[in-house]
């Protein structure tokens, strides 16, 4: 074929900026939607996306990707795999689909913001593919759980979760509305394309794929790595934006933007990926600990990319390293205790063998988190299941919307992080969450946590039943129970018998 | 006539098909997109294969094993044409679906 190569005509297709005369440039690209830094337009025209693709190549490649991803479609509907899969794995899937599917769809609107308001034509073209990619991800991640919904109503949350006021959803929406839906095209491209898609989606989409393959769930493993191959391309929108900002004197802004987004997404991922990796996946199938994945993907890969662009690690790096060791262990305890409030069945799964593994991967685990589970194990062994449910209402972080908790045991260092603003006191789980609030209190001040809503009267009746219903529990599906029906305590019973 | 209640309309939506046992006979109940409901023998006349595992496009049911095709509304074979599936009378009363299997035997056609 005597067709031109892409590079011969590509530059023409991304040379589409013009000078408007019938309307003002400012009205055509309002700073609040486009570029609040007001970097000169000829600077934006140097934007060179490092990963190029043409429409022609895109539809061919994507068709082939979908051919492979959907090839399991017919087999899936009759597959016995999901009948036989353990509830720990089913919980991984329910949590994944419920938090991811509609988030991907909202991302279409964010990509569209870059297509309309991006100051560089290259950004607008690349984001057009990004927008289509997100449509793909939403549709794939709705299609597959839909095949499972007749087996188990909890899969209905793949579609419904984002429409409920479940506490986990409130947390996810708050973070996504903050870094993605309510940002201008330029700021958003750093927050989403770089911090989120380059930095952290790898954990969920590649990290979980190894566990999925070990579990025998090749459908899921294939699905999420196929999705990530799109992200690897469209996430490249962030790199040139950073370079242009740094070159034009906005290095500090770029750094701050990345630091905010990275922390916000990290807090979500440590729950949605950290807990599954270290607790829900059966011990025999665990490949690496969450901490090991974090070191591979973030500490080695992501940070190195940040530094190569002339930026630095976030100022809160020590807090972050500490959080890798702790946050998801705290939240595993919390979510398990509050299991009736979630749409999956979280296994406690801290039998003698699992505790050995956790101690090896996270030295000191037994002396801290272990003490928390000791009490629960004791109650379960004595048939006092009712005592494993908490009696008090937790304090929720006004930023990440996740219950504030701390490492138990000897190293206990409960310390509230608070901030007073216009007569209201806000509570935070960590210094970075408080810091984000102080960067723009007006942006965050009016939001109410799920607990605020109990006290303000929005949730009626303000009792446990009322709260559960408000969160969609008993409406969309039943709430969670222990995924293994407490069988993980049997190891302790037999040890005690000996 | 011996119509027996099989299920309700809520159990079998438009576009769905499902096996039911009616007076000791295995019956495949099909609710087409046009709203009509049909009952046919559950086994393909070709070999011992459950038709429920086949695919339904409009009123054409294709067996999953050797891709034999039948017109569900008439019971006639489309490919091969000499094949045929037994049809059972269906009655809908309010929300309930009734089927009569009395005196009707499944048909078999060897290739």
């Amino acid at each position, binding site marked *: 074929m005597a067709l031109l190569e892409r590079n011969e005509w590509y530059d023409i297709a991304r040379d589409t900026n013009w000078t408007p005369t019938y309307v003002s440039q400012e009205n055509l690209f309002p700073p609040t939607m486009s570029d609040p830094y007001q970097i000169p337009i000829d600077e934006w025209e140097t934007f060179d996306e490092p990963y190029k693709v043409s429409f*022609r190549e895109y*539809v061919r490649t994507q068709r082939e990707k979908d051919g492979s991803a959907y090839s399991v479609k017919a087999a899936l509907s009759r597959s016995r795999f999901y009948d036989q899969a353990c509830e720990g794995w089913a919980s991984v899937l329910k949590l994944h689909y419920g938090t991811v599917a509609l988030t991907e769809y909202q991302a279409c609107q964010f990509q569209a913001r870059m297509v309309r308001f991006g100051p560089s034509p290259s950004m*607008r073209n690349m984001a057009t593919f990004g927008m289509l990619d997100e449509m793909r991800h939403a549709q794939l991640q709705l299609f597959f759980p839909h095949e499972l919904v007749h087996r188990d109503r909890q899969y209905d949350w793949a579609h*419904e979760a984002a429409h409920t006021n479940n506490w986990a959803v409130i947390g996810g929406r708050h973070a996504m509305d903050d870094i993605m839906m309510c940002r201008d095209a330029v700021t958003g491209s750093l927050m989403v394309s770089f911090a989120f898609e380059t930095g952290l989606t790898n954990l969920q989409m590649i990290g979980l794929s190894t566990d999925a393959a070990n579990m025998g769930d090749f459908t899921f493993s294939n699905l999420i790595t196929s999705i990530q191959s799109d992200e690897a391309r469209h996430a490249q929108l962030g790199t040139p934006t950073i370079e242009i900002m740094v070159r034009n004197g906005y290095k500090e802004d770029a750094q701050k933007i990345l630091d905010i987004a990275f922390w916000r997404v990290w807090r979500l991922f440590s729950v949605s990926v950290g807990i599954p990796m270290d607790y829900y996946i059966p011990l025999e199938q665990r490949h690496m600990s969450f901490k090991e994945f974090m070191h591979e993907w973030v500490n080695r890969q992501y940070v190195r990319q940040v530094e190569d662009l002339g930026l630095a690690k976030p100022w809160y790096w020590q807090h972050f390293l500490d959080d890798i060791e702790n946050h998801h262990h705290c939240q595993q305890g919390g979510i398990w205790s509050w299991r009736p409030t979630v749409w999956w069945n979280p296994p406690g799964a801290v039998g003698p063998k699992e505790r050995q593994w956790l101690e090896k991967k996270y030295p000191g685990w037994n002396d801290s988190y272990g003490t928390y589970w000791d009490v629960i194990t004791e109650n379960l062994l004595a048939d006092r299941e009712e005592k494993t449910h908490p009696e008090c209402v937790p304090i929720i972080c006004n930023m990440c919307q996740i219950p504030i908790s701390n490492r138990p045991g000897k190293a206990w260092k409960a310390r509230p992080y608070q901030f007073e603003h216009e007569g209201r006191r806000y509570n935070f789980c960590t210094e970075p969450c408080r810091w984000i609030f102080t960067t723009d209190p007006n*942006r*965050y001040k009016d939001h109410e946590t799920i607990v605020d809503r109990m006290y303000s009267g929005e949730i009626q009746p303000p009792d446990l039943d009322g709260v559960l219903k408000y969160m969609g529990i008993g409406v969309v599906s039943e709430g969670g129970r222990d995924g293994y029906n407490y069988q993980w305590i049997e190891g302790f019973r037999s040890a005690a018998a000996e | 006539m011996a119509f027996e209640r099989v299920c309700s309309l809520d159990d079998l939506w438009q576009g769905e098909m499902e096996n039911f046992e009616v007076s000791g006979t295995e019956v495949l109940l099909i609710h087409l997109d046009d709203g009509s409901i049909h009952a046919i023998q559950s086994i393909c006349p070709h070999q011992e294969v459950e038709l429920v595992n086949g695919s339904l496009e409009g009123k054409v049911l294709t067996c999953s094993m050797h891709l034999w095709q039948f017109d569900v509304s008439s019971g006639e074979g489309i490919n091969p044409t000499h094949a045929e599936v037994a049809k059972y009378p269906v009655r809908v009363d309010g929300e309930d679906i009734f089927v009569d299997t009395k005196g009707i035997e499944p048909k078999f056609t060897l290739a």
Partner: protein
Amino acid sequence: MANDSNELKPLKTWSHLAGQRRRPSEYEIVSTNLLWSTDGDMPWALSPNIDMNKWYLKYRNQSPLKHEDWDAFRDPDELVYRTYNIKQDGQETYVDGLLDEHNRNEHDTGYGKDWLECLAKSYTPARYLIHTMQMGSAYLVQMVPASTIENCAMLQAADQLRWISRISYRTKELQKSFANLDFGGQERNRWEKDPSWQGFRKLMERTLVTYDWAEHFVALNLIAKPAIDEAFIRQLGKASRRNGDMLLALLNDAQMLDSERSRRWTKALVEFALNIEGNRTILEEWIKKWEPLGDSAIELYCDGLPDSPEASSEAKIAVKEWRQSIGL
């Protein structure tokens, strides 16, 4: 506990589709009710007075065009991402074939001087015009009140990038064949200054700053897009047939297929909106406001086409007849 007393039956599909008592299509399963920002009074979970909440409240929630259930809208083509790629991959293979064949026949060398001037003036600058359509469609994507509308707008935006790419491709080929004519260099100036483009540029700049989602839809899909279809795609296509440029004629025919799909969902959305009392007046007023800009764009563009005295009136009539055919 609430969940003990509640009887929850097994589901056959998403709970929100269960009321239909019909096996949902793949399209319904993956396309319906996907926006979280239309669930409550406040679009986004941040303070009501931040810019983005104010923007969505003003330009989406408070748009004069009303419907109590925008989510009930359905794309008549029921396209999903998967089927869009299959369709367009096939179409792009066809276009590759056209380009390849014409290249092998040394098609470009047969162009006369006048026709080359027409291509430079009326064809290659179009990537700017089509790009404004891409931007405008993407504005709809982020602002429409239902995911089923958003999907149609998304594929419409993607179609525009398809044709920007093909026009750029042809621009490069012409540049290689006729180095003296500044193909690939003179387009921006033509788009900004040549009288034949000023009607479209004015129309599109005005459309792009029309931020009410429904008025933006009217300006884009009921005025600008059909005007581009009829003037740029159809009348330029006719002129190229007359001038022996079969390649451009066939390329524009292929582009028209995408436009026809866009017209199908536009028609469906208009019919959907017209079911609500009061919407007709709003749509008709907007059309009255925008129609002169659309007509003027057609006139200026078509008057620049060679040997096409009837082009302008044909295009204007075709646009009007199409709008009438969808009830406006």
